[in-house]
């Protein structure tokens, strides 16, 4: 009798099957998300044209007024900053899409289906990471066209791209949590602007922090985007890497540890 009681219900999949489904469901969801992305011209504008405009604007409009002391001049200073910002801004898409799906009842449907519980979030992150990687590579191409060069070798250059992607994923986790917790597209968008613009612009991304007033330097010198971009700049151009890199990794790990469970919890409770 007890033997029967502990048997799984008929039709209940075993552990191996469940693991296989977790992977295939994640891939199905991410394929679906990329298909949606490719169908909406506005999304393509935001993910490709906007960062390219930032490159051109800072390179040719503001760049002349900004004095930096790095090999290759301002365009070399700028590109790691733009790439960091591009990766961080990719999370707008994450938050907005999740909020839309929540509002339309798409997430309710997925949650009422016998699919892997992790797949909606994981699939979203996989798709957004892929999308972000494409954007980063395009922006690097545009950077090369306007005079940017990696001058520290191929290995560190790849390291720089990887670090940018991890920054992007960390931001996507924060955005996934806020998108699901807030659940309203416009509010999510407004909230994204409120935290993303300050942390990207009040950093070492576009100007040397030493040109900011003292009180702002205190913030800019000690926030994660600065650590990530300083490390990226070191990898692209040479110079000190170790110190900013460890701080950047510590922050990113911290964000993963805090926001991954928060996002999962928000998904489970999504209503």
């Amino acid at each position, binding site marked *: 009798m007890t033997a029967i009681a502990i048997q799984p219900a008929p039709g209940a999949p075993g552990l191996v099957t469940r693991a296989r489904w977790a992977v295939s469901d994640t891939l*199905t969801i991410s394929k679906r998300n990329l298909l949606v992305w490719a*169908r909406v011209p506005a999304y393509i504008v935001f993910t490709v044209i906007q960062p390219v405009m930032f490159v051109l604007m800072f390179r040719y409009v503001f760049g002349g007024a900004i004095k930096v002391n790095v090999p290759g001049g301002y365009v070399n200073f700028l590109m790691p900053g733009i790439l960091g910002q591009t990766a961080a801004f990719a999370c707008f898409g994450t938050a907005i899409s999740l909020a839309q799906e929540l509002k*339309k*009842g798409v997430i309710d449907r*997925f949650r*009422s289906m*016998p699919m892997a519980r992790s797949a909606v979030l994981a699939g979203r992150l996989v798709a957004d990471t892929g999308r972000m990687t494409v954007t980063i590579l395009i922006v690097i191409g545009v950077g090369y066209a306007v005079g940017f060069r990696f001058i520290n070798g191929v290995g560190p250059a790849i390291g720089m791209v990887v670090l940018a992607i991890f920054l992007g994923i960390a931001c996507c986790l924060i955005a996934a949590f806020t998108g699901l917790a807030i659940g309203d597209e416009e509010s999510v968008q407004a909230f994204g602007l409120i935290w993303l613009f300050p942390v990207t612009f009040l950093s070492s991304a576009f100007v040397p922090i030493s040109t900011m007033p003292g009180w702002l330097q205190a913030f800019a010198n000690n926030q994660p985007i600065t650590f990530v971009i300083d490390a990226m700049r070191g990898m692209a151009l040479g110079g000190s890497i170790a110190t900013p890199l460890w701080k950047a990794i510590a922050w990113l790990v911290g964000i993963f540890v805090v926001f991954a469970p928060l996002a999962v919890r928000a998904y489970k409770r999504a209503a």
Partner: protein
Amino acid sequence: MEQSFAGPAILVEGLTKSFGDVHALRGIDLSVPRGTVLGVLGPNGAGKTTAVRILTTLLRPDGGRALVEGHDVVREASAVRRSIGLAGQSAAIQIELTGRENLEIIGRLYHLGRAASKARATELLEQFDLTEAADRAAKTFSGGMQRRLDLAASLVGQPQVLFLDEPTTGLDPRSRLGMWEVIRSLVAGGTTLLLTTQYLDEADELADEIVVIDHGEVIAAGTSTELKGRVGGDVLEFTVPDRPRVGDAVAAVTKLAEGEPHIDEGTGVVSVPVGVNGSDALIQSVRSLDEAGIETSGLGLRRPSLDDVFLALTGHAAEEEDADTGGKRRRGRRKGQPEAEKAGRASS
């Protein structure tokens, strides 16, 4: 074991759920036999959506228990998910994708495999009269087509029990009739259906049994005929074209009423329960209204509708809009006011 399970398809006992101070469900009981349709009828904020969300494993109840096909919705949630389909209040489809893509993706997520997903999508598109539009983006679909696609999506996994939360809210009358056709054909195929609605005619048309919910409690249950019997008698109905005189008209016929007369502010229609003395009441009302010098149109007697039942049971009309719900349509998801904000009934 699943096949030999002989109890009702849905069994709910003493289900409670609160959001902060708002008691969305105050202990409801339901039992839905296999292959039948239960209509859950109630106004906005009655607790209908909360009940559906608990039964479809989206929300955990505070107390009581709920079984779907014999599986507990909390402890055996994944078994429940394998036997249900859900179509909520808005079309939960991805409008950028085609009708076919929407269904195929759902099929893949039900682990049907590529070929079977394609076949199932084709079959459902055919069944729901969407074959011609199948390869267009769903955003080009009419509201009725989107809801049909959404319903099709809820059936991809061939559920034994289907939950439809206000399936025709926001649809124009023609699309609504189309939805009814589709729902009837599903039920003929043996699917157990739980349907929530705030339209009394919809429950009347589709449901075998009706449960009336108000403020989180079941206030009446039975067949449509049984519920109509509760009003016990005929209803005198007329319209006063000269709106300012509606009050005078009601006063003129009050002495005939066996219950509270009801005035529909929107249409100017006055309904007066007159019990068994229908024809006498009709003649007298003509005299009284004539003496008072009030013009009316469409004066007549009719059998009670579920509207009258609802009015008799709750003291307020079922489709009455709350004054504060006139804003844009939103799904009732804010914690603390689970259903209060989902206004959005299409104006008739």
